[in-house]
């Protein structure tokens, strides 16, 4: 396949999955500049790894792997701790006008709570919110399904506690 053709296929595949990359950027990067940098780095890593994609996993699963690996190991400008009283940065990355004020407040609390999770915990929560089956989560993260189920239950409880304390 010629380079131009590969580029064409790559662009098409990425366009079809770009929302997924936006979501990873929203959950891991706190400023617009960081999100842009992370998006760029993920796309570069995807492009580098694209020739190695052999179709064994779903393309979206493969994109998740690259995006999460890049976000977790690559973004070093991240703030170490986001305090509970800080305005929800993640919430600012999600726009929605369809919720009423009370609902919006609770959402903000939940987003703020997610921001306080560890890097791996964020990945698990994000995949859960994306409705990815545990089997696919295992394929992405390399954590056994049993372990993931336990972690997910603990995370739900942790988020419940965090939002309660806000």
């Amino acid at each position, binding site marked *: 396949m010629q380079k131009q053709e590969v*580029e064409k296929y790559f662009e098409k595949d990425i366009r079809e999955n770009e929302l997924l990359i936006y979501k990873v950027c929203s959950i891991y990067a706190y400023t617009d500049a960081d999100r842009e940098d992370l998006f760029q780095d993920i796309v570069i890593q995807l492009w580098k790894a694209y020739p190695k994609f052999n179709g064994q996993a779903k393309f979206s699963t*493969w994109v998740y792997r690259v995006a999460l690996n*890049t976000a977790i190991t690559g973004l070093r400008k991240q703030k170490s701790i986001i305090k509970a009283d800080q305005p929800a940065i993640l919430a600012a990355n999600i726009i929605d006008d369809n919720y009423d004020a009370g*609902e919006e407040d609770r959402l903000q609390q939940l987003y703020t709570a997610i921001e306080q999770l*560890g890097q791996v915990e964020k990945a698990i929560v994000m995949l859960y919110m994306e409705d990815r089956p545990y089997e696919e989560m295992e394929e992405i*993260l390399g954590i056994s399904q049993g372990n993931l189920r336990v972690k997910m239950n603990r995370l739900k409880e942790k988020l419940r506690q965090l939002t309660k304390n806000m």
Partner: protein
Amino acid sequence: MELDDLKQKWKQNDTIRKIKNTDIMELIQHKSYGPVAALKKAFNKQMRLMAILPLLIFATNLDDVQKVFTNIMFWSYIAFCAGVIVYSWFNYRLVRKMEGMDKMVKPNLEEQIDILETRVRWQTIGIRIVAIYFIILMEVLPYIQHIRMLDKWHSLSPLIRFTFYAAFLALQYFTSRRVLYQKFGCHLAYLKSLIMEME
């Protein structure tokens, strides 16, 4: 609000703030800015610099080429630079292995930790070899060729000289440990904490 209530909202495609100007074809022309790319760049630079250094020494002594070629110091530099080039090339290859981001997250992190630990181990050995190499050079050189700048040093008693070498090696041991920790230790600790999070 429960996490499950957030699911629906999260899945609404129009609620995620998009990034402006995402020209995919333009983006892939850029270079990665990540820590692995930075390490790769640093080793590449180190190799180039070490290749240029002997040429610079040679260029500054063009008026007496014969003198350069018969100078043992020049050949010592060559040996040192060649050593650093080999060492940087080894590191460069090691770091390239870290570039693959398409593996599962946990095995990828474990591999990165393994590579970084190997690198730190080799760097510790490398620095020690360089220090011992220069100590041997300072002791042996005057027996092979007269080096004026070593005259004063060799006029000191061997006891003082070897005490200084021992102190130098001890200082090197502690400072390199500290520098290596600052350079790689934090990142290693961070990667290990991620693995802990996964257990």
